């Protein structure tokens, strides 16, 4: 366990250091959801009359989907370049490697979350601290799993890399739309709602909305947590297997 933490910290340090050297990029990353919140949020507010309470957790889930994908991209670059091979010859814990690489995206997510919540407060967002904390923990678990899955995708698409772009681009958007992050699924036709029900992100989104509303005991919270844990378990197991089978 200590090696795992040590190794995760090693990889996280490595990934985070370049951002400290170039904090402008970090600021852009962290400020990005604000654009969504104000442009899209205001638009939606008029259109479907949904509240910030509904919209803020959705934005966070969206950020949680894109962050780990960009982590997969950095892995792909290092896989093609040779740096990953060098790290794989060291005794570095493989799971720590997967988690450490996603950790930067997760830290960014947490800062984004704080920023959004602080800014949404004066707009009428009601803060349920315990629920929000639980929600963020759930998102981090989900994000680590997604990160590991995007690493699997990166490994499968080496050495060319085309597969990575094709799959990540074509999977991300339907996954988002079908989860009800941006627009509520209640008004959607039946076949669309059915697709939404097999989408794990839907459960996360529902759970997040319940948690952000302070409803910790809602059944959707349980389903969301299960979905997050399942994605994390599958991602880490699969990622580990890919690394063990050789790059």
């Amino acid at each position, binding site marked *: 366990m200590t*090696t795992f933490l*040590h*190794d995760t910290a*090693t990889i996280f*340090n*490595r990934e985070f*250091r*370049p951002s400290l*050297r170039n904090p402008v990029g970090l600021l852009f990353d962290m400020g990005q959801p604000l654009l969504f919140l104000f442009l899209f949020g205001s638009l939606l507010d008029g259109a479907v009359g949904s509240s910030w309470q509904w919209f803020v957790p959705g934005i966070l889930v969206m950020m949680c989907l894109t962050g780990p994908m960009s982590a997969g991209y*950095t892995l792909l*670059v*290092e896989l093609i*370049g*040779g*740096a990953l*091979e*060098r*790290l*794989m*010859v*060291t*005794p*570095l814990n493989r799971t720590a490697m997967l988690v450490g690489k996603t950790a930067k995206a997760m830290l960014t997510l947490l800062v984004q979350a704080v920023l959004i919540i602080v800014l949404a407060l004066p707009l009428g967002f009601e803060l349920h601290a315990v629920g929000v904390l639980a929600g963020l923990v759930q998102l981090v678990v989900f994000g680590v799993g997604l990160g590991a899955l995007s690493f699997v995708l990166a490994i499968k698409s080496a050495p060319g890399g085309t597969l990575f772009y094709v799959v990540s681009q074509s999977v991300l958007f339907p996954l988002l739309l079908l989860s009800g992050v941006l627009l509520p699924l209640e008004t959607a036709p039946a076949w669309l709602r059915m697709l939404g029900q097999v989408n794990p992100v839907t459960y996360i989104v529902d759970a997040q909305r319940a948690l952000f509303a302070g409803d910790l005991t809602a059944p959707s919270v349980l389903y969301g947590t299960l979905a997050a844990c399942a994605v994390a378990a599958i991602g880490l197991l699969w990622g580990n297997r890919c690394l*063990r*089978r*050789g*790059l």
Partner: protein
Amino acid sequence: MIHARGLTREFKVKKESVQAVRGIDLDVEAGQLVAFLGPNGAGKSTTLRMLTTLLPPTSGTATVAGHDVAREPAAVRARIGYVGQRNSAGEDFLVRDELVTQGRCYGLRTREAAARADELLDLLDLAPLAKRLPGTLSGGQRRRLDIALGLIHRPDLLFLDEPSTGLDPKSRAEIWEHILRLRTTYGTTLFLTTHYLEEADNMAERVVIIDGGRIIADGTAEQLKNDLAGDHIVITTGTAQEAEAAARLGGGTAEGATVRVRVAQATAALPGHLRTLDAAGIKVRTAETVRPTLDDVFLTLTGRSLAHDDVPA
């Protein structure tokens, strides 16, 4: 240091299995410098990747630095260094930062890793580049950084995959200087692949030749050349008839006005050979002795030349 038995590796390429390595037995003692020589696609890198735990063998076993690569990969990793064919350093990271990270990957504390990083920056003449990004380094500098990354934990055994490929002659000489110094200073066992014949010939005390996934020769460069290729005397005469007469008399094969004859020690045999021909009235116009190269060895073994590399896979 290395004991491999029946090592094989298959790859699935479009549902067809391709055997990249077909049963390799290899023993390398501590302190040796072994060059693994072979054309592209011969299985050099695949073998190296199995020995360094990057790739599990399809069958066979290998004990590296005292531990089994399949059963105790972590123990093997802790004891070996590896310098891959591509760039070891990530593009976003400063030279010194990558060295410190590498040290921490081997379990060093940050302070130890930093001290070791500075030591290696000095050792490999990289100190002025500590705060640079890898992308701003020259090919030779990058290669030295790769080697520094492979040495951070003072391994007893270092694998290098084509350490000098793609470098200009001066950088190649520098890299070799560093590699050889490792050996004399620390007694590091070195196992490297190369397709530069003259490098294997000049630098390694042992040359292992691989082709089609099998080891086809193993020995010192001298042994291989003497046993498998041998010295030649090459003479030219005035006419083809004279050349044929010379071949009948002194052995060898005539081709046009040129005669090639294999002898044990060409420089010692040449004067006598010329006297014999002279006594028979054959006028020799030019005469030279030819020492074999490792390429001649490869040619004898496979019927192909290594110098014209690309072998169909």
